[in-house]
């Protein structure tokens, strides 16, 4: 093999079949996720054929996964960088409260949005500083801040649900554009942004380098401390966005309800989507497929009247199963 063949590689790819090119683009992992998704659809579709495929139910699934979708994508970026953020659920709770309070105080939906994004970013900044400069393990650091953020949300709201009366703001959560809920448009838009950022931008590629091997990243001139803090800020802002969406959908700010357990689902979706917890590996497309699997599973369990307590068992098992599969693949290569 010589340099001539290096240049010829493009021509070779072109000569191959369209199907194998599709496999290559999607990746083996994503295809197995699609298969898993199809199996779930077949199972729940046959169990509740009457409602599962109705457009209303499919929209429900879509609506159900928007908030999780945003969090799974930001969690993917964090995990690819070699970190973990288990405070996201608490951050979402905190930002719904701050958004609701800001709207209550000013009557302005923009103030609410700004409050949610800024508070989310601040929460991420705190995480980033503790992890990067305090040299605290990411799991422990965000486990601590998870309790702190929940506490702050309770203190701010006095444990009460804070109602939002702005119709403009509620439009984000319940409005439709071109027949599709606005929430779904927002998910699609953030997905495109996240994908381009992680897969194509130089910063995104450096994040893969950082997670894959921080020593190499540093020798290559990447300021790894700044990257790490920045990534947690991004995760906080994404949690802020998710909080805004949740508040707009429920019409209220609540410290716990609606945001509890989101970190579990977000991490599960990211790992299902192919993230290696060691860092350096994972994609936005994979995370979205992971989200879809969780969405269908949640929806299907409700339709087939699986008791809530058992749903929790299923979600926990899914996370562990996903990690076991990921580790198995990692050790085989």
């Amino acid at each position, binding site marked *: 093999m010589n340099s001539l063949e290096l240049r010829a590689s493009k021509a070779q790819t072109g000569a191959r079949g369209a199907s194998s090119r599709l496999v290559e683009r999607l990746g083996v992992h994503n295809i197995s996720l699609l298969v898993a998704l199809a199996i779930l659809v077949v199972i729940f579709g046959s169990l509740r054929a009457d409602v599962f495929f109705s457009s209303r139910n499919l929209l429900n699934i879509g609506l159900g996964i928007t908030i999780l979708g945003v969090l799974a994508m930001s969690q993917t970026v964090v995990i690819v960088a070699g970190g973990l953020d288990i405070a996201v659920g608490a951050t979402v709770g905190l930002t719904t409260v701050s958004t609701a309070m800001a709207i209550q105080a000013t009557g302005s939906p923009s103030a609410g949005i700004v409050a949610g994004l800024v508070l989310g970013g601040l929460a991420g900044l705190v995480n980033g500083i503790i992890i990067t400069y305090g040299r605290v393990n990411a799991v422990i650091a965000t486990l601590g801040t998870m309790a702190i953020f929940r506490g702050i949300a309770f203190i701010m709201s006095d444990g009460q649900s804070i109602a939002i009366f702005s119709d403009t703001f509620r439009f984000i959560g319940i409005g439709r554009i071109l027949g599709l809920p606005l929430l779904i448009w927002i998910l699609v838009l953030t997905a495109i942004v996240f994908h381009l950022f992680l897969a194509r931008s*130089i910063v995104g590629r450096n994040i893969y380098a950082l997670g894959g*091997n921080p020593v190499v990243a540093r020798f290559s001139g990447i300021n790894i401390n700044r990257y790490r803090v920045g990534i947690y800020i991004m995760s906080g802002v994404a949690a802020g966005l998710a909080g805004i969406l949740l508040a707009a959908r429920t019409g209220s700010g609540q410290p716990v309800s609606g945001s509890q357990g989101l970190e579990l689902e977000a991490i599960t979706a990211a790992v299902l989507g192919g993230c290696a917890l060691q860092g350096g590996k994972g994609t936005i497309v994979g995370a979205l497929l992971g989200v879809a699997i969780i969405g269908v599973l949640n929806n299907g369990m409700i339709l087939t009247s699986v008791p809530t307590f058992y749903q929790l068992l299923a979600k926990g098992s899914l996370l562990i199963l996903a990690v076991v599969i990921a580790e198995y693949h990692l050790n085989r290569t």
Partner: protein
Amino acid sequence: MTQPEFFSLDKVSKRFGVVQALDSVSIAFRPGEVLALVGENGAGKSTMMRILEGVFGPDGGTVRHGSTPIVFGEPRDSHRAGIRVIHQEPEIVPNLTVAENIFVGELPRLAGVLLDWRKLEEQTDRVLATFGMQQDMRPRQLCSTLGPAQRQMIEIMRAIRAGGRLIAFDEPTSSLTDDEARRLFSVIRRLREEGTSIVYISHRLNEIIDLADRIVVLRDGRLVDDSPAAGASEQTIAKLMVGRDIADLFTRETWRAGQLLLDVAGLSTDRVSDVSLRVRRGEVLGIAGLVGAGRSELAKAIVGYDRRLAGTIAMNGVSVLANSPHAAIVAGIGFAPEDRKHEALLLFRSILDNAALCVPDKTSSFGFFNRRKALEIVSPLAAKMSIKAPNLDEQVSKLSGGNQQKVVLARWLARQPMLLILDEPTRGIDIGAKAEIYRLIDELAASGIGIILISSEMPELIGLADRVLVMAGGRITAELSRPDIDEATILKHAMPQSAPALGDHIQ
């Protein structure tokens, strides 16, 4: 030939995808014999070791003990049969003691559950005494405090203790100093006298001629020669390995002095003290020293990876103030670290990604990676260095050591640095690729780039460097210029002052 054969390979073949890693290779290992296994990277040496070790089985042929065929399901089976492979990177547990590491799996017990420390210490003392290692380590010492040579000795002692009858060494001296290597050789000779069968893999042909009784040469998975070591020379072996003559392995044009490029004054970090050095354009400055002398640490100090405690660094008269690799890169300094796998390469990314890592500005449009631009920069470099791979999207983990090193070099050439620091650039690389890297160093120097070459291979320093700085204990102990650069002078200055009496204290 009169000795009884014990382990042998009979027409063993192994194929990985399109690559025929081993092609019907037959070798008989004999007790009390040192068999040297040589070949370029990818010749099939590692594959053979993995088969002996039971990591995977052969596609064809058999491994025999005497006349009985044996099948190893997993490494434990081959250990039980008495086969041990000592790897380049010793597999020891850093947070356990020397004694525990040597006796792992067979720790003496008290009352069935407790560790019998006294007995363990006695046993360890005995083992250390047989190997003459009492000066080097204590039974209760944590292995994390040991250097690479001592770690390797632990693995050897463990293998012998566990009853190894065939011990294979995979490039054992690549992380050892000359003195440590000499001690390893005397251990190997002693094992041979005791009837152990030794397989010795190395790229260092002088060692092999010195040590081996028999030399087996592999090329492209085939056995091309199996003959007694007596009468073999480096040239004949090298010729057999590559299938052609390599007369011009070490060539370097004379140096034309250029302007002052790098000026380091009084540089100190936690691991180097008060280092001052200068590099001119077009100059190759060699850094010699034993392992642990602080050579790599000096490189890490210059590129700002380690925290600078004192001193100044200037490039082209401009001071490099910030203490970060980023600042060094911006100042025009490139660094190819010794540990390619852990410090230089993103193993699971492609050649293209790795080579483009340090030139984000030249491979992007509006902050987004631009594959076409990256190819325009990397393809000519890959061609120039003849990187062997199906295409530039190949994962670097799948490349041979020599090609991996070329990818690292391509990364820096893409950056067009003014100064390039190469730390052991030819470690674990086959002769053909070595010669290419030497040629490249010469070319780069001729084009006006300053080069700092850190190397443990004396011929490399003597052949390539215009000047050599010798380090010991984190300090520079001597500066040698051509024609005073020779092995004896370098060694004289490389020995730490406080070192105990050296020599073979194993009889």
